[in-house]
């Protein structure tokens, strides 16, 4: 079945991109209203302190809070926690007496940084979210090949379409990380590793063997190079298999997939340290790579299901039946629970032992991000658990779409919760910069994915498992 990207879809994607650029542009313009510490002083004085979420947009709120004095106490208390997010972990720096001097930053200056970080972080979170969907699908695709799955070959072309976003998406994430510099990654500030600077941080300096800008970019390019190479090789072999008269290409693809999975599991882990965990350079967690993997895997599978349902509703995937949908929904269900398992394991181990140097990570999240932090658990766990448990519901397209949309929103929040507390602290919000960035990358994602989908027939013809897959029945 040939697919041609419809004009409506293309226009929709372009409108999304345009809206997104406007939103992102507004975010930068808005945040750069505040140039100096004095601007922030004015902002803080005029702010209604109860509504932290609205602060960034609500620059000149006139109402004066009656609880001003007590709120200022809270502010300075929050500052300690927010400083953690800037890599100035309070407890630790206290133990290095000589450094404490270097960490003195006025509250206003600190808020100024947070305001300036926000549009960058919003952009980065959305960019990474859409990139990770494509990467998750690539891993799923390789697993299907390596496991010689009999049910999924009819969906290979959909997966190949989605993975077309790995290259542009990955480059965009790297570019944003590079351009944002210490707006997202505090360790990219050269002062932090300079012993003569007032911003010197011994802990960050101790990690500079790994956390340095050159290394970050080189590693990023290696990861991306490997993933993109597998994507291109697999696509080429998969298309060649359509035209060949033996299974040589399939066998090659099988071997490449197995090799890719080994490469992927190492690089994905390191990518999660580099691209996400290093926003909190004082904090570390050993299962973080797995946790990020679970997030990208379940989002990827969800997007495969959503796009398959969309294409099927257009009558383009007549060989995809509700058993395929059922299998995808089972994966969504199972991996959602796997994600929760990892989320909880990470949280509970740190909560239980309550070691100050680790627990600050969750302290900031629970204090300032209560709604998104626990809301995301409900969206990523309870919702799919109850919705997708029933076998019959997993075969109903609109049910899967509903669950899928909630899962995707939940995993956006997941990434949001990983990045934002470290960069904007308690001055977070989901407003124009965030939604704008989501629109921008959603549009780009759609454009790349559906263009790639229209480049090849939607059914892989000579895959050795294609007959089995077409008649797959559960």
């Amino acid at each position, binding site marked *: 079945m040939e697919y041609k990207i419809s004009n409506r879809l293309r226009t929709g994607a372009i409108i999304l991109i345009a809206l997104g650029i406007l939103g992102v542009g507004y975010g930068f313009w808005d945040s750069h209203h505040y140039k100096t510490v004095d601007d922030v002083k004015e902002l803080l004085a005029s702010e209604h302190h109860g509504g932290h979420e609205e602060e960034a947009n609500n620059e000149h709120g006139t109402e004066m809070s009656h609880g001003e004095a007590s709120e200022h106490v809270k502010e300075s208390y929050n500052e300690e926690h927010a400083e953690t997010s800037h890599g100035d972990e309070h407890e630790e720096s206290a133990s290095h007496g000589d450094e404490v001097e270097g960490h003195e930053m006025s509250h206003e200056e600190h808020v100024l940084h947070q305001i300036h970080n926000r549009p960058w972080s919003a952009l980065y979170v959305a960019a990474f979210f859409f990139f990770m969907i494509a990467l998750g699908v690539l891993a799923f695709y390789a697993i299907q090949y390596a496991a010689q799955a009999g049910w999924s070959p009819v969906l290979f072309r959909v997966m190949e379409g989605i993975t077309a976003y790995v290259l542009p998406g990955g480059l965009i994430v790297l570019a944003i990380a590079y351009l944002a510099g210490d707006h997202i990654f505090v360790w990219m500030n050269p002062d932090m590793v300079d012993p003569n600077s007032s911003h010197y941080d011994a802990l960050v300096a101790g990690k500079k063997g790994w956390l340095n800008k050159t290394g970050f970019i080189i590693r990023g390019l290696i990861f991306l190079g490997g993933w993109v190479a597998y994507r291109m090789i697999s696509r080429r072999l998969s298309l060649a298999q359509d035209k060949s008269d033996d299974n040589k290409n399939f066998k090659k693809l099988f071997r490449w997939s197995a090799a890719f999975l080994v490469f992927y599991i190492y690089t994905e882990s390191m990518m999660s340290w580099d691209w996400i965990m290093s926003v909190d350079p004082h904090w570390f967690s050993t299962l973080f790579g797995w946790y990020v993997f679970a997030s990208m895997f379940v989002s990827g599978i969800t997007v495969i299901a959503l796009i398959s349902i969309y294409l099927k509703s257009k009558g383009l995937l007549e060989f995809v039946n509700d058993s395929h949908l059922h299998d995808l929904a089972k994966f969504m269900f199972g991996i959602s629970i796997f994600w929760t398992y990892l989320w*909880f394991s990470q*949280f*509970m181990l740190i*909560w*239980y032992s*309550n070691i100050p140097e680790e627990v600050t990570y969750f302290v900031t999240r629970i204090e300032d991000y209560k709604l998104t932090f626990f809301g995301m658990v409900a969206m990523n766990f309870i919702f799919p658990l109850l919705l997708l*448990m029933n*076998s019959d519901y997993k075969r109903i397209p609109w049910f899967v779409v509903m669950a899928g949309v909630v899962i995707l929103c939940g995993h956006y929040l997941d990434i949001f919760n990983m990045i934002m507390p470290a960069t904007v602290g308690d001055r977070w919000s989901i407003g124009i910069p965030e939604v704008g960035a989501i629109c921008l990358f959603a549009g780009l994602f759609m454009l790349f994915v559906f263009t790639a989908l229209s480049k090849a027939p939607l059914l892989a013809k000579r895959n050795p498992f294609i007959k089995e897959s077409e008649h797959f029945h559960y």
Partner: protein
Amino acid sequence: MEASKVIHAIYTDDDVLMSAVKKVKAEKHHIEEIYTPFPVHGLDKAMGLEPTRIAITAFMYGCVGLTVAITMMNFIMIKDWPQDIGGKPSFSYLENMPAFVPIMFELTVFFAAHLMVITFYLRSRMWPFKKAENPDPRTTDDHFLMEIAVHDNEDELISLLKGTGAVEINSIDKDEDAH
């Protein structure tokens, strides 16, 4: 009322059995029972058996297990003797919940699994020392047996079954007390 006379048609191949079941169902005869040495995929559908509800019971048992776990730990750790153990906050259930989750999870699984298995045993009448209901010992090895009730139509049934590839057809007088 159960028929006192039944026909046992014996097959040696599950595909033949499946087509025989479809044929017999098409002729609107009631199949009392089918004995097979292993699960035959799709047989329940061909016979028109209703889907099992055991998964639903398992879900409910799981809810019971979760409730038991929560009530138990809430009473013991929070209500009855809220001791300070290593600084864990035992002021309310929610505050100390992460520590209880492993037990909540395990008890949910424990109740769901075990009660579901017991339900299965009860519903399918299986217990130790139960007398095996086996009309023909070969059905535990490599033969398939279809049991059809006779209602004054023995000859017609036998000729129908003969056409379905049965290797052996026996008319049996059923002992009413057997069940």
